[in-house]
């Protein structure tokens, strides 16, 4: 916002403006950034609290609140006066907070991701349970190493896509990048995993054929 120097204590400016939320947002849609800033003042506490109730973490809640207002600002052309502004904004805020919660949850659960991939790897002809377990463990270790070596963004994108089953658009929102960037991350991450599993196949006699492509499984819009 060009006139950020005009920012005042949250709430004071917002409460002093007698225009309705909808009038202010229509004004901001016409290029009045000060009007949008009034809306930020007016709704920030509620938006932050909504995010905090979902996330349970102040810093993350403030980041989600920021994302919600940015999303509202960017979507202002699409908003129609029939919809109540606060309802619309609150829904954006809840969705942003949920996306962040899923991103947070996805990273610690990478072990579960590995286990599921490992399960897929060892399926096939009947094997002795002990051998299957051994292979599963070995494959899991290989996948763990492969995932550990992936850049954070690739690992995050793969986890959200395959196991949180988020669509590419929502992953892009959650990670703060474009859909094209997400597709690129997924492609590079899959390629790296595949390469590492092919190496594993040479060692153990099973390979990456069972890892599903985007067209087969979760997050079908990659």
């Amino acid at each position: 916002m060009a006139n950020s120097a005009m920012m005042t204590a949250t709430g004071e400016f917002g409460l002093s403006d007698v225009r309705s939320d909808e009038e202010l947002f229509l004004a901001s849609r016409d290029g009045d950034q000060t009007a949008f800033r009034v809306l930020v003042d007016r709704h920030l506490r509620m938006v932050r609290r909504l995010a905090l109730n979902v996330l349970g973490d102040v810093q993350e809640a403030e980041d989600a609140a920021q994302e919600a207002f940015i999303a509202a600002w960017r979507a202002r052309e699409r908003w129609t006066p029939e919809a109540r502004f606060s309802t619309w904004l609150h829904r954006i805020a809840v969705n942003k907070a949920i996306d962040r919660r899923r991103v947070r949850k996805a990273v610690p659960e990478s072990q579960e991701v590995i286990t599921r991939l490992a399960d897929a790897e060892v399926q096939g002809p009947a094997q002795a349970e002990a051998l299957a377990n051994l292979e599963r463990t070995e494959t899991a270790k290989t996948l763990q190493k492969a995932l550990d070596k992936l850049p954070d963004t690739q690992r995050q994108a793969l986890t959200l896509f395959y196991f949180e089953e988020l669509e590419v658009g929502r992953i892009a929102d959650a990670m703060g990048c474009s859909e094209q960037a997400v597709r690129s991350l997924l492609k590079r991450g899959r390629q790296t995993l595949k390469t590492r599993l092919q190496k594993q196949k040479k060692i153990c006699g099973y390979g990456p054929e069972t890892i599903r492509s985007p067209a087969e499984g979760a997050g079908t819009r990659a």
Partner: protein
Amino acid sequence: MDLKLFEARLKALGPALDRWPADEAEAAIDLLSASPEAQDLFAKITAEDIGVFDDPGGDLSPLAERIGRSL
């Protein structure tokens, strides 16, 4: 979890999901991600919660400024 149960749990436990049993919180998140009605209810209860209890958010002007700079 359906909307009726969600409302009952919201009224019983409050809107801060970190105070809910983990499995119920996850079920609530699943519902919230799929249902605008649940989102609206969640916002309504949150607003009531702010009205009843003092908000510990403090001075939010730094956050407001941060948002303003990022637009």
